[in-house]
């Protein structure tokens, strides 16, 4: 697969703080790549280095085979973090404004329809809801039909319905072959959209892989949580080492066929419980395990 975005040993510091500390990564053409990490991990700085809006102190970046400053602007789209366009333009005027900056732009009305804002064409940006504003910003990033689209926390502060609407837009773009570089705090978003995920912590890549690879390697085992009416000491359950937490009793590495045995053991120990919940590990578990390690924080699971 040809690479659309390549970073090799990229470093960027602000004063004594290393925002990006030796990041190397490669994103293939047509791939959806998610960058996750705690606040202050360096995600936005890395996006800026990749798009050419910040210059790395060292290391190299290639965007569509060229240095970002040499890349054809027509082929790149960006939705910056905390982007606040003029609020006294209508949604249609806003997208039309960005379309006017390109030699070859799409019909603004068609782009607005694509993000589900065709009915708000004449509404001032400032009067749109939070989710609609973000969709208008996404439309502004799509108006030049970019081959590579950088989305820096595109669904932050967007309600669940709006988030799902944006996800569908991104999925359609990915299906049409657009390379998407996404940063997010939403693990469900990364798990649903991304072909590969990288976790950035303290400016360095802690792990990279497909969501399933990361879950398998770092997410831990299935867990059974037993919710109790009151706190009790962890009972003796043969084969398990339950942990008493605020959630209740947590049994790790429990397969579905083991649940009956656990319940019987609880009955034998005279432990009354209110509910049982069993779930497989998710990307969020992998994230917490990795981010906890990387940040030196002990994560209570």
């Amino acid at each position, binding site marked *: 697969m040809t690479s659309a975005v390549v970073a090799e040993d990229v470093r960027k510091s602000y004063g004594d703080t290393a925002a990006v500390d030796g990041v190397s990564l490669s994103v293939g053409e047509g791939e959806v790549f998610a960058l996750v990490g705690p606040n202050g991990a360096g995600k936005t700085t890395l996006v*800026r280095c990749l*798009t*050419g*809006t*910040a*210059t790395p102190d060292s290391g190299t970046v290639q965007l569509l085979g060229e240095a970002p400053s040499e890349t054809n*602007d*027509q082929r*790149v*789209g*960006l*939705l*910056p*973090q*905390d*982007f*606040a*366009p*003029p609020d*006294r*333009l209508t949604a249609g*005027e*806003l997208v039309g*404004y*960005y*379309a*006017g*900056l*390109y*030699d070859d732009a799409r019909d603004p009305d068609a782009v607005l329809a694509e993000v589900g804002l065709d009915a708000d064409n004449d509404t*001032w940006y400032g009067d749109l809801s939070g989710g609609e504003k973000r969709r208008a910003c996404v439309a*502004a*990033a799509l108006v*030049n039909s970019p081959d590579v689209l950088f989305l820096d926390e595109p669904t932050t502060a967007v309600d669940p319905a709006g988030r799902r609407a944006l996800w569908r837009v991104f999925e359609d773009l990915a299906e049409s072959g657009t390379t998407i570089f996404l940063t997010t705090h939403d693990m469900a978003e990364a798990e649903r959209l991304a072909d590969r995920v990288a976790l950035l912590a303290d400016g360095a890549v802690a792990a990279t892989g497909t969501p399933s690879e990361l879950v398998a390697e770092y997410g831990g085992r299935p867990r059974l949580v037993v919710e109790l009416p009151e706190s009790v000491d962890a009972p003796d359950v043969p084969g398990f080492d339950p942990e008493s937490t605020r959630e209740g009793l947590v049994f790790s590495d429990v397969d579905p066929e083991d649940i009956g045995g656990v319940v019987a053991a609880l009955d034998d120990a005279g432990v009354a419980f209110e509910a049982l919940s069993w779930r497989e590990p998710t990307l969020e578990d992998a994230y917490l395990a990795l981010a906890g390690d990387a940040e030196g924080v002990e994560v209570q699971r």
Partner: protein
Amino acid sequence: MSRLARVRAEAAATYRTFLRRRTAVFFTFFFPVLLIVIFAGLVRTTSGSGGLFTEPTGYYVPAYLATVVLFTPLSRVGSTVARHREGNRFEKLSTTPLTRAEWLAAHTLVNVALIAAACAVLLVALLATGASFALSPWLAVLVPATSVAFCGVGAIIGSYADGQDGAIAASNGIALPVLFLSDTFVQPALFPSWFRPIVDLSPLAYFARGVRAATYSGGDVTTNAAVVVVLAVVAFAVGTLAIPWTE
């Protein structure tokens, strides 16, 4: 052609945004008229008695025009640059074909158009007060060139001020002394002798002297206009480089 199209797109968005800020529109045009009402209508002075505002109203035409060509671009471009920086708009624009020179050119064009309109209102208001002065074609050079110069300075202020509030405060803090120390409302003869050479360092002084020579007293307009044009080119270039397009 595409360069023009980009400047047009940026200017159109800027113009629309300005027109929809009713407070900004009102005060852009009301402020100079207010000055005329106060100083040309209310303040009572006697010609030849010395002190402030003792010359005929026509003498102060450059001063009234100076309020517009100075305050409007400084505060508008300064706050616009700060707003763009805070909203990560430059980060977005830097990934489009628009260049920072085109961006500043677009915003300068809009400001020059607004300033020209405000100056026209001002001149009509002055004529209405019975002021005696000539409508010189040199105004079509001096007003736009000085506006361009202060748009460049506004871009510099907005690039280094910490936020919109800071940009507006800084632009007002700079504009007010410049206005009164540039051979506009206050004649240099009223300053101490050691201070008079400092007046010559103000770009606005060349505007005021050029306009006064062209509209009221007669004299050398060309030299003053040439200085203003050179300053406009330099300020625009420095302002362009100062814009925080990328980190």
